[in-house]
């Protein structure tokens, strides 16, 4: 499944879409290999949905090209592109029952009835709704609608399935379960997937490769672990929920910051930059040597506790510790920094990279 070496299925070259003065897609280059699952991640308004609509043929490009299997799709209408799109609010046809919705694409592709019915039944089995053919879509729960929408998108066996916020309207626990199911399902079927989400947990759980978008451009692209471990810019880091970021000057294996002097990994280029300290790298120490802080907040997360610290100097810090080690609110602690969790952020200068506060996921806080 992680075989990203397969043949190239989708390629975008300099794709651009403008709505009046606003640029929704700005010269986007992107490729998706066959059988790959790519997740586009970004705050709302970053152009993710427009990207999907452009590939689907629902949104004409103002510049650039979309190629599917190497063929330029300019002038090819949506219904002849052979891609599937699952809409963010599902858009099930209210006047049709579940079976009618799933069979719709098969009918459009002139699949005869005697082959449609077993196909619909098999798909409903696959998404965990066996025998639901005659149910009205109005009486389905959100999770069930999502499954029907997925079955409907998969039915015509599109060469590329695109998912727009596939789990957007569902509650947390259902999402966590479904995302695992989805990944297994796509693995089983060998489907090529281009999904869009603003939820990084969803993206990282689903994708072979993550593409982070910002204001119509691609900010970073890579395997989930790489992106997570080495955010390419302050924007990406903050979008992923990392807030321990400050300006720094690297010299002689150390970074001079508002928090004091921090160790940096070997080989870090010298000069001014931004650095990120992952919460796990903020180490609590008994009072004494290090940066003195006051504990101003605690968030419990299973066996771990996220601490919000107010250092005597420098911006607020987030730390992580085991439940039993968690100091009380108001306690005075001293912190030290672990070199392996200090990440130097290349990319743009500070200040310009505030992600939408409402949109940034709060994981890690």
């Amino acid at each position, binding site marked *: 499944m992680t075989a990203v070496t397969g043949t190239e299925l989708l390629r975008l070259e300099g794709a651009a879409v403008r709505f009046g003065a606003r640029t929704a897609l700005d010269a986007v280059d992107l490729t998706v290999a066959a059988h790959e699952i790519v997740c586009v991640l970004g705050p709302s308004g970053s152009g993710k949905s427009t990207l999907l609509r452009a590939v689907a043929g629902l949104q004409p490009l103002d510049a650039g090209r979309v190629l599917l299997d190497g063929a330029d799709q300019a002038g090819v209408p949506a219904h002849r592109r052979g891609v599937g*799109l699952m809409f963010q609010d599902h858009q099930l046809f209210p006047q049709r029952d579940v079976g009618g919705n799933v069979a719709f694409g098969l009918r459009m592709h002139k699949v005869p009835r005697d082959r449609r019915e077993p196909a619909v039944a098999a798909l409903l089995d696959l998404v965990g709704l066996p025998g639901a053919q005659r149910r009205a879509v109005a009486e389905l729960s959100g999770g069930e609608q999502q499954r029907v929408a997925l079955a409907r998108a998969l039915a015509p066996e599109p060469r590329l399935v695109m998912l727009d916020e596939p789990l957007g309207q569902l509650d947390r626990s259902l999402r966590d379960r479904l995302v695992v199911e989805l990944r297994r399902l796509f693995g089983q079927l060998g489907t090529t997937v281009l999904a869009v989400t603003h939820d990084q947990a969803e993206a990282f759980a689903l994708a072979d490769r993550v593409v982070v978008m910002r204001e119509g451009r691609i900010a970073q692209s890579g395997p989930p672990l790489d992106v997570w471990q080495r955010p390419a810019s302050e924007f990406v880091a903050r979008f992923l929920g990392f807030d321990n970021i400050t300006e720094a000057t690297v010299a002689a294996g150390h970074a001079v910051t508002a928090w004091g002097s921090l160790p940096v990994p070997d080989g870090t280029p010298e000069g001014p930059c931004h650095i990120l300290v992952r919460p796990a790298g903020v180490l609590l120490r008994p009072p004494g040597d290090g940066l003195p802080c006051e504990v101003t907040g605690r968030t419990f997360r299973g066996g771990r506790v996220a601490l919000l610290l107010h250092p005597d100097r420098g911006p607020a810090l987030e730390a992580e510790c085991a439940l039993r080690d968690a100091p009380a609110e108001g306690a005075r602690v001293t912190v030290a920094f672990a070199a392996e969790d200090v990440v130097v952020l290349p990319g743009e200068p500070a200040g310009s990279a505030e992600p939408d506060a409402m949109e940034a996921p709060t994981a890690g806080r």
Partner: protein
Amino acid sequence: MTGSGPHLRAGSEPHLPAGSGPDPTTGATAEAAGGSVRAQVPVRRPSGTARAAALRLALMALPVAFFAAFFAYPVAAIVGRGLREGGHWHLGRIGDVLGDPGIRHVLWFTCWQAAASTALTLAVALPGAYVFARLDFPGKRLLRAVVTVPFVLPTVVAGSAFLALLGQNGLTDDLFGLRLGTSVWAILAAHVFFNYAVVVRTVGGLWAQLDPRQEEAARMLGAGRLEAWRRVTLPALGPSVAAAALMVFLFTFTSFGVVQILGGPTYSTLEVEIYRQTAELLDLPTAAVLTLVQLAAVGAILAVHGWTVRRGEASLRLVDGATTAHRPRGGERALLAAVLAVIALLILLPLGVLAARSLDAPGGYGFGYYRALGAQDSSGTFLVPPLETIWNSLRYAAVATVIALAIGGLAAAALVRRAGRLMRGFDALLMLPLGTSAVTVGFGFLITLDKPPLDLRDSWLLVPLAQALVGVPFVVRVMLPVLRAVDHRLREAAAVLGASPARVWREVDLPFVGRALGIAAGFAFAVSLGEFGATVFIARPDSPTLPVAVARLLGRAGGVNYGQAMALSTILMLVCAASLLVLEAPALRRGTHRGADLTGEL
């Protein structure tokens, strides 16, 4: 056109929740819960904006041509004939006519009776709107359909019904010696009778969909029951009350059939005066001036109405109308009883009296008058037995419906995307025939469509064409909200699944629109059936329509003629009511609120 009775909520925008998803609340909940799940992709489709505009223009072409040929041209010709002489405009005539005390009296009466009718209708119908919106009681759906019957009833029938109730030898005359036949009270009562449904449906339709929790929230914040209503519900209802009031004002301002029958020689609206000047006094200049005055007034009313409706489109929190009603409790029971009594007295009684009178033949109760309708008239009022007019009317109305559906359907398709001032103007143009003097249009047809290229003088098509003019606004108003309520992303979903544009229309739009098309057809049919003001001019003597026959019978002395008029009116009433009930039937049968919502647009 004013000769017809039915009314509609012109310019009304959907009170359906945006999006056609099965649960209108999902959108709101998702927004509240997720905040971020809605990507900001504009829903508009910028794909080839120029092509879309071209398509719109192409769709508009036929309706515009239709209105130019069969509305603007005849009306302009009449005005020109009245005000142009020897190649010069005589605009001074406007001043002369408006200075005439008789005309001033007509103008004054037209305005004040319309204002009084509107106020009275609101006072009587607003409690009804509440009852139908918020209370649950047995037979509600059926009653809702019944109060809508006057809405599609020809004015001639309403006039006859109130004559039978309040007129000479009418019910109140027999019982109490009370004769209101040619009084302003009869006119006002008939106007309320007609417009009751306009208020109940326009205001009540929205009222049912207002989220009651808004009021509950206000009450939790310390507002009393009345205070909460005044601060939360009333402001939300305001624009729809204003829109309904303006529509009632428009219809009563241009009232023709009712005033013609109940007004006697003393009371006359602009429209009646135009008819008198044109048909009886042959004073075309005066008629032309009055037509212009009426056109200006109607234009102004429609402009204010359009503005009100647009303002009312402010985002209200709407919920499924079927979920907000509750069993009446406490004082609401008294209110319900009062509303039911009003409906019985105001709507059921006149219709019942009409039917009773038609059966009250000289030889005792029976179908004597009905039988007389089938006989060849010896007095020369008709060239054919009056019963044949039923067949004429049905035939004309059917053709008019087809024309109205074609023209109105194209216009609605062009108007689906809200766009630009040009389209708003087009929208307004479509409404204009509703308020323009039908008499002018009818007479205009006679003098303009009698020479090539449009020589329709001897064509039976003339009548359906005039009737279709009134049907088109109804078709547009019914279709437009439904077309707009189809979520464009449903079409996209179908396209991505492989449906071609034509297939998308068939698979996605048609199931929604199909039912609206039926409703539109029913309204157009009922309106055409009842059209009087224009038809009275252009129907050929050997093939009069039902309303024309009723008016002729009423215009002649004698109990037999009166009885036959009642009998014909009853038949007309039954046909109109039947076509309405057929429309409402799916909603009644399935008990779904969806259908009710659709007619609630009117």
